[in-house]
């Protein structure tokens, strides 16, 4: 059997509906993974900045710089 790529895209006339369904689903699934992963990176970044500030404040107090 030879693979007919045109017939595959056309899907017996239902191509638009079928590819819209699979395309949209992919977008929704990927968004549900990518968005929380980005949020995780942001939280880590903010947390690091917070810890760095805290450490800096402690150092200042130790060396008597804080007025």
């Amino acid at each position, binding site marked *: 059997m030879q693979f007919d790529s045109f017939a595959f895209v056309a899907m017996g006339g*239902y191509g638009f509906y079928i590819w819209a*369904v699979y395309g949209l*689903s992919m977008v929704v699934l990927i968004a549900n993974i990518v968005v*929380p992963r980005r949020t*995780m990176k942001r939280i880590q970044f903010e*947390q*690091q900045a*917070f810890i760095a500030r805290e450490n800096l404040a402690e150092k200042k107090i130790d060396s008597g710089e804080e007025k």
Partner: protein
Amino acid sequence: MWNWFHRLGAPRSFFEMTGRWLPWLSAASLLTLGAGTAWALLFAPADYQQGESVRIMYVHVPTSILAQSSYMMMATAAAVFLIWRIKLADIALQCIAPIGASITALALITGSLWGKPMWGTWWVWDARLTSTLVLLFLFIGVMALRSAMENRQAAGRATAILAVVGVINLPIIKFSVNWWNTLHQSSSFTLTEKPAMPPEMWMPLLVMVIGFYLFLFVALILGMRNEILRRESRTQWVKQWVQEKSRNAV
């Protein structure tokens, strides 16, 4: 066993355990969804009545199942939170709502994209479609209610009550195809009876359902881990974890 559950209920142990599970769950989800999609698009036969359009089923049925079971999970988490005040249940309740909303929207859209060529219309106000639309509004309502309230404890309780009350919609969705005359066909899958489809069709469908469930768990775990980090951001273990992470990244 109970000890294990007890530890899982603590945000910190949940965070650590899911950190170990996540790579495996993600790989399994990707694999099953990839295999299921290829099977559904390339190898599953066309329907003798619906032709190639039946391939929409391999997305529409799993998303519809997931829409309802993610609501069931959310309502269960809500009940657990109301009864036992377990913090992790509140976190689960908060994180599942946006995932459930997007999956329910997908179920409606894929149904619409199937309805147009098959029924000749994008939408009808029949029982199953309308009750599923109500499900979407319930998810959105839970999200909106939480974001509208300042106090986290009050918001948690209010959204939990809304989620529990909304459970009444689930049997309506389930039996809508039996109770009312509708365009929508009855269930394709039941636990007790043999499927009405040939194995060449229900096997890829089953693979897709499993893949979508795995995806749901991965997405939920990702969201819950973020929320745990946010809520516990001033604790020692989170600080240690963040510092360890940044050390490993360098």
